[in-house]
């Protein structure tokens, strides 16, 4: 079970934030095209940084706590998921603050003003 530690943490992040979409109706997953365009470019940059750091042995992962699937750059699959899950959770939190407070972010469409 220890192999699932990192993966379980990421699944936990998605589970904890799921009510924001399902109950608060922030419509982040619903706007999946915008979500992908916001998350993927940043994820690519950070994965390059991650691969550089792993290559330089600046940090490394405990083989006993990851599933063991390695991707190019010797990155654990959990790292790729990290750079998808964490930014998605950040956007969910951001949109939740908007829904709850009504504060503006400067990207509201005219018809909603």
């Amino acid at each position, binding site marked *: 079970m220890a192999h699932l*530690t*990192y993966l379980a*943490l990421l699944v936990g*992040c998605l589970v904890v934030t799921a009510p924001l979409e399902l109950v608060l109706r922030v419509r982040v997953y619903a*706007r999946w*095209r*915008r*979500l992908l*365009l*916001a*998350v993927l*470019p*940043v994820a690519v*940059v*950070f994965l390059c*940084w991650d691969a550089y*750091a792993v290559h*330089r*042995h*600046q*940090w*490394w*992962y*405990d083989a006993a*706590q*990851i599933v063991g699937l390695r991707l190019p750059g010797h990155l654990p699959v959990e790292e790729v998921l990290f*750079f998808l899950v*964490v*930014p998605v*959770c*950040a*956007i969910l*939190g*951001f949109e939740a*603050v*908007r829904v709850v*407070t009504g*504060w*503006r*972010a*400067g*990207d*509201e*469409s005219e018809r909603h003003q």
Partner: protein
Amino acid sequence: MSYTALAVAAVVVSVLVDVALLRTRLLARRIFWVSYAIVFGFQLLVNGVLTGRRVVRYDPATILGTRIAYAPVEDLLFGFALVTLTLSLWVWLGRRGMH
């Protein structure tokens, strides 16, 4: 480059990307800082588990050695850059008419 230097550079680049390139004015808005404060709390928790349980380990030579909730202080800068770039791009896409 050390993790410390890269993490500081990432914060500078993320702020520059928002202010000079995407120009969302997000960093001047209350909604950003309140959201970031909430995300920051969860970041401490997630990072604390990853580093406290030693899922991720660091070369002592590449970090300052200051730790907050088990995580190297550099992780907080890394997280700020990740969240800022993502939210900036999200808002920029919205301003471009993508809703």
